């Protein structure tokens, strides 16, 4: 019995119709594919509009269409739209096929004749394929109401609080001893110049106290199994060597600890901490962590001062790493960023010239609870600078390092300029390429800095050196820069140079991404489902991203993304179940010989072997629909819905126009 197929060719305004003769394609389909079942072929300006969809619905009802082919944009955009149109008209949504003649034809080819011919072939492929479509129902799986948030920075904190406040459980896993992320390192935040800790710590405390949040710091996720709604995550809780049931956070242990260690995480290498420590005074949780690699007891077997002085006996040197398994329904990744390593640009002298500082170092310098108590001073810890140069775009907007703009460094550099003015009265030189201050209050902040008397030099700094040429330059750091607005090379002697280094993905972002089944783009940031319209979802259902992991952004944007990811997760939790695409493999028991070739091919462990019946079976709840087993089965015993052999081979047939050839050989 031939199907009754409706073909709809979209103009998409002039996007398609400008290159492809859409009327010709529709006419061709109606004529040449009539014997293949095409009963109607239309072309229309915007198939995705309600009028366009109504065309389809009307034809289904009036002509009794059993299949629909739409030739328009990419299925990634409107497959759901046309499926819904079919559903509304009473036709199973999976009996509809959307083929792309826009992204694949009109937008990428210039020859109109060739483009039209290719579109015909694509429509032909769609028609042949759709004949083999079957009515399908989405698989519904329950969603576990708990959520895992990985990363305790501001984005992760926001996400966790939103979900927990809504009444659902959250596991927050943070690899450092305390949550807070990079924001906890900052002194002031632009443009309001709020004290960073003051606005952050209340949220941190909320997380620490929240009855719906299980906070696991000094912990990492080591394995994730399962699929949306049903993830099992294994978490390694690293040994703190502190019994958290007994610890009160009184701080005596780190007071008494005799071993000082350079803190290159929180203090950015500028200050020191003890071998047993909390990273900063407002740390959440308050429990310290013992750095085994630097602890005298673990190195030499002596000391144990912390144990001696602890009033509650909470120190436990025998503590081991523990592994926990948790069940969650969804995962939000908010693992933040690393700073660009400025040593990759030796011309700026970091590490060689004492008074060249990175942005994070400067944050610690200006922070009241930092190593200098908030005094902006040179490396000697005493002398305030009389002149400071701030270099923009270090490692960003640079073909040699990172081509992208790190988004926050201009505002950050302006902030630094303001702090230097405020605290030292020094001359400040900002060397920039462009001043990027787009968000609310940002441009006004820039104006303010202009009025404060900051010197703005438009030019990328070529070099920071101490090789002086004149007596004025002696003992100073000389910033060599072309001032492009006056067209002159300048050598500016300063006491201190601050490098506004760019943001980079975490050094292990790729490995962490693989754990969760998501990928990184060429720059290393995690790939979102759609760059314009879906920035917090990923290609993996149930795994979301929020904050700088998705790309450089400021705090308000990170908070917004954290809240967006939480909203997405909450939406799914409230629906109690999620509908999964019915693209699944099935094994025909009669055809299966039990050869077991398929058994090792499934990364989701969806294929089981039954020893008693000597056949293999696919568990439809675990099957993700990749089709690898379908392609591998030597007996042809495995079939896959949605992308069956018949469908793909038919599409191939149609694309090569073999169906037309065969029809031409048979008299009408």
């Amino acid at each position, binding site marked *: 019995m031939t199907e009754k197929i409706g073909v709809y060719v979209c103009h998409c305004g002039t996007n398609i119709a400008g290159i492809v003769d859409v009327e010709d394609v529709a006419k061709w389909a109606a004529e040449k594919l009539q014997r293949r079942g095409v009963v109607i072929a239309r072309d229309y300006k915007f198939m995705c509009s309600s009028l366009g969809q109504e065309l389809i619905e009307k034809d289904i009802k009036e002509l009794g269409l059993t299949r629909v082919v739409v030739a328009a944009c*990419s*299925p*990634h955009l409107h497959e759901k739209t046309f499926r819904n149109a079919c559903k509304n008209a009473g036709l199973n949504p999976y009996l509809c096929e959307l083929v*792309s003649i*826009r*992204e*694949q*034809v009109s*937008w*990428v*080819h*210039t*020859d109109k004749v*060739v*483009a039209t011919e*290719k579109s015909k*072939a*694509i429509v032909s*492929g769609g028609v042949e394929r759709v004949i083999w479509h079957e009515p399908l129902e989405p698989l519904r799986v329950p969603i576990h109401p708990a959520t895992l948030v990985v990363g305790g920075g501001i984005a992760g904190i926001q996400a966790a609080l939103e979900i927990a406040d809504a009444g659902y459980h959250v596991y927050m896993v943070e690899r450092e001893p305390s949550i807070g992320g990079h924001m906890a390192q900052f002194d002031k935040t632009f443009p309001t110049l709020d004290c960073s800790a003051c606005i952050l710590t209340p949220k941190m405390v909320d997380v620490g106290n929240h009855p719906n949040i299980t906070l696991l710091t000094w912990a990492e996720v080591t394995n994730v199994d399962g699929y949306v709604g049903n993830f099992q995550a294994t978490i390694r809780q690293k040994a703190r060597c502190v019994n958290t049931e007994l610890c009160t956070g009184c701080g005596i242990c780190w007071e008494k600890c005799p071993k000082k260690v350079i803190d290159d995480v929180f203090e950015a290498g500028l200050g020191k901490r003890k071998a047993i420590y909390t990273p900063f005074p407002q740390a959440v949780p308050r429990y310290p962590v013992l750095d085994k690699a630097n602890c005298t007891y673990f190195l030499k077997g002596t000391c144990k001062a912390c144990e001696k002085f602890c009033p509650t006996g909470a120190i436990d040197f025998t503590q081991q790493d523990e592994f926990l398994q948790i069940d969650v329904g969804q995962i939000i990744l908010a693992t933040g960023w690393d700073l660009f390593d400025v040593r990759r640009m030796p011309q700026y002298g970091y590490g060689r010239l004492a008074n060249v500082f990175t942005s994070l170092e400067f944050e610690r310098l200006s922070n009241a609870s930092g190593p200098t108590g908030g005094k902006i001073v040179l490396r000697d810890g005493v002398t305030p600078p009389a002149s400071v140069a701030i270099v923009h775009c270090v490692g960003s907007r640079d073909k040699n390092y990172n081509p992208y703009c790190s988004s926050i460094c201009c505002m950050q550099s302006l902030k630094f300029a303001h702090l230097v003015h405020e605290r030292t009265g020094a001359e400040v030189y900002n060397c920039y390429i462009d001043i990027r201050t787009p968000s609310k209050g940002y441009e006004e902040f820039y104006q303010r800095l202009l009025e404060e008397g900051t010197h703005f030099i438009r030019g990328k700094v070529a070099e920071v050196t101490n090789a002086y040429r004149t007596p004025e330059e002696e003992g100073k750091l000389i910033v060599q820069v072309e001032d492009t607005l006056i067209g002159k090379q300048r050598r500016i002697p300063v006491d201190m140079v601050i490098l506004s280094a760019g943001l980079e993905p975490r050094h292990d972002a*790729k490995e962490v991404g*693989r754990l969760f*089944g998501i*990928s*990184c*783009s*060429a720059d290393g940031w995690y*790939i979102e489902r759609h760059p314009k319209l879906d920035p917090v979802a990923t*290609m*993996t259902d149930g795994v979301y991203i929020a904050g700088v992991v998705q790309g450089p952004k400021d705090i308000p944007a990170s908070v917004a993304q954290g809240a967006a990811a939480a909203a997405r997760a909450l939406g799914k939790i409230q629906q109690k179940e999620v509908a999964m695409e019915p*693209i699944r493999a099935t094994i025909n028991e009669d055809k299966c010989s039990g050869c077991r070739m398929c058994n090792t*091919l499934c*990364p*989701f462990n969806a294929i089981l072997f039954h020893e008693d019946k000597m056949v293999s079976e696919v568990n439809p709840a675990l099957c*993700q*629909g*990749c*089709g*690898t087993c*379908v*392609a*591998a089965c030597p007996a042809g015993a495995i079939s*896959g819905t*949605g*992308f069956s*052999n018949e469908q*793909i*081979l038919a*599409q*191939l*047939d149609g*694309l*090569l*126009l*073999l169906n037309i*050839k065969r029809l031409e050989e048979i008299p009408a």
Partner: protein
Amino acid sequence: MSEQTDINKPFEPVIIGFTCNWCSYRAADMAGTARMKYSPNIRLIRLMCSGRLDPTFVLKAFAGGADGVMITGCHPGDCHYVEQNYKALRRFIILKKTLQQFGIEAGRIKLLWASAAEGAFFTEEVNKFVEQVRALGPLQWPTSGGGLEKMFAVPEHMLVKEVTV
């Protein structure tokens, strides 16, 4: 399928490209969104994963008149389904070796890894492949276009007849 009717017109190969839904198909979409231009000789088939690639598809493509076949998927390690692109790799290697014994040159089949962000790379590689296949000339496998009958033409007088003595 592929035309070579006019000596002066260059031969236009027909290439079938298999793309995976998560990476390479999106790379093709991205090439489209960014209006990058590539040769129209390629016609794409979307699979959920390069691991779905059955050698039957490739053989059918060549037997059906294609001059070249391109198989694309996610970069090793980045497969949306974890590691299925490795299965595609393994099948590709033996398929290529087998096809060469059939006289189908290694240059007619290509395996390409492209991530969703690599629209420009996808475009370049398609163009390169089209030229590579163009240089090899049309394949015109006889099963696809009436070439078969010519093989079995025996002059009438030579056909076996019953000897009546």
